């Protein structure tokens, strides 16, 4: 359909997916910046250029999303100088954008990299950030939608999607455990005298409860140990380095595990849970009364077991008063 006369037509081709959250770029760069709308159009255009995936040779794509040569689009709003064309100047920013974000994702996901291998990992992250560019002021949140993306587009992680998803959830849980809030821990005095049916607690915000189809906690620990060895070997003789390089961490076999990712005295920990304990904690986290939460653990759970779990959770400071 032809756009109405006088209306600004977006440069984006109908049917092609836009990065989520970013509105379509203008067809042309504004010639003057008078209104806020002009500034928005210029910034939107440049942002679309920056978030476009790099070519195989790490360059700016030669064609714009409407099919025009990128040289032409760049020259509309960027000045060249006697050494660099407008295209080359924009390319610097396009590269810096991708290198910065890939570096960050690389550092935050050692387990996922080990599962997929570096090449496949990079392709996954490029596809992820192309669909879901950052919506947060901090790079800390860059992986927040990676699990969702893997579920939506399993082709990037096939045939190990289930494992990749488990590792991604586990690694994001570590980010949360690192710096989420710590609320005042529950004391026995606070709950004394409150009937179980009325007592509602909550978990510390830094705790993630994960029901996983793979023992990724031990897998990620092994990967990190191997990476440390590699780093140490980089200061040793070549022979030792080569030996370490060969060391491969085998992918884990399917096994249902229940894990709490948490922190204690500002150090990260992973704690395996029995299934009933996991279900009780999950119910507490969902806002159920303590009576309902204990019931969620199942009829086979003995009172002394529950008592032991609660004693441990209280000692770890996992439980807080729900206000």
């Amino acid at each position, binding site marked *: 359909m032809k756009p109405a006369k006088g209306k600004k037509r977006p440069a984006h081709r109908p049917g092609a997916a836009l990065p989520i959250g*970013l509105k379509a770029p203008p067809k042309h760069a504004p010639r*003057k910046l008078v209104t806020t709308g002009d500034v928005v159009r210029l*910034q939107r255009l440049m942002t679309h250029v920056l978030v476009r995936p790099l070519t195989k040779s790490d360059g700016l794509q030669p064609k714009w999303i409407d099919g025009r040569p990128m040289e032409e689009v760049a020259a509309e709003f960027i000045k060249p100088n006697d050494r660099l064309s407008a295209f080359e100047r924009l390319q*610097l*920013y396009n590269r810096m954008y991708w290198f910065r974000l890939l570096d960050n994702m690389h550092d935050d996901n050692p387990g996922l990299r080990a599962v997929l291998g570096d090449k496949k990992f990079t392709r996954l992250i490029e596809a992820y950030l192309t669909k879901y560019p950052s919506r947060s002021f901090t790079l800390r949140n860059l992986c927040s939608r990676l699990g969702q993306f893997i579920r939506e587009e399993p082709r990037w992680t096939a045939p190990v999607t289930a494992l990749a998803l488990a590792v991604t959830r586990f690694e994001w849980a570590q980010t949360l455990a690192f710096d989420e809030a710590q609320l005042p821990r529950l004391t026995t005095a606070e709950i004394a005298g409150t009937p179980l049916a009325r007592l509602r607690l909550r978990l510390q915000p830094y705790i993630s409860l994960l029901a996983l189809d793979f023992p990724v906690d031990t897998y990620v620990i092994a990967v990190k140990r191997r990476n440390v060895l590699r780093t140490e070997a980089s200061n040793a003789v070549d022979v030792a380095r080569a030996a370490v390089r060969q060391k491969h961490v085998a992918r884990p076999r399917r096994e249902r595990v229940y894990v709490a990712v948490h922190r204690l005295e500002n150090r990260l920990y992973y704690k395996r849970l029995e299934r009933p304990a996991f279900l009780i904690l999950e119910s507490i986290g969902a806002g159920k009364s303590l009576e309902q939460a204990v019931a969620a653990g199942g009829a086979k759970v003995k009172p002394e077991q529950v008592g032991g779990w609660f004693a441990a959770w209280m000692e770890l400071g996992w439980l807080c008063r729900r206000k």
Partner: protein
Amino acid sequence: MPANSFNGFTDYGIGIGLRVPHYAHILEQKPVVDWFEIISENFMVDGGRPLQVLDQIMEQYRVVQHGVSMYFGSADKPDRAHLKKLKALVKRTKTPWLSDHLCWGSVDGTYTHDLLPMPYTFATAKRTAEKIRQIRDYLEVPICVENVSSYAEYHVSEMTEWEFLSEVVERADCGILLDVNNIYVSAKNHDFNPYDYINGVPHHRVGQMHVAGHTKFEKYILDTHDHPVLDPVWKLYAHATKLCGVTATLLEWDDKIPSFDEVHNEALKANEFIDGAKKAKSVTSGARPLGAPRP
């Protein structure tokens, strides 16, 4: 005594950026350092080790906040959640002033995590100054805006970068964090004289300076912060210090970070030039501290 009318922190001396590889050394050895600059975003979290380290540092040292994501030049309105977190940190650190960059980096709520150059127009200067005022009023702390290094210029620009910086800070009535390395990098990339830049900004508004290392390529220079400061940058710093007076100064070293002592010793080289400025002239009459109301 303030060295100029917008700089009440001449006693701050020479600081360095607080970086993770140095945490253990600083906390265990407690080296003598005038002050640390922290990247605000690294501590805009709700708990955990970052805040624990920050509190330990603040027990021993003066801390000044420097941000990388406020994007005064973005057309988007300031993000409320972001400002709320930043204000909580400002209250925690009691930073005497807060700096961030004169740049843009987000649109439609999508972040590039880059410090993108502004189009130098009167309309954007007016809009940017208004945003700085709003943010300062919300945070209740003096703001210094930093010039960025850049690799591209826009056709729509109507003035030089230093004219734009001056226009913004005068309209916003805020301070300047003058990054002399960024001036040098941009001067080489855009073929202007860096001394014209330094001569052209309102010196009485310079509340802080940055120095850093950069990397030269065949056709451009990148602001890499992974080297010692190069001689031409120190010369620019000396010139700026003569014009602005003694100013709180910070060395940025963010990549290939060497030992704490190496970074600190590099930063302390700035003292040679500060001493020169002290001898050169005294510009103290009528001075007011950064952010203080005009008489």
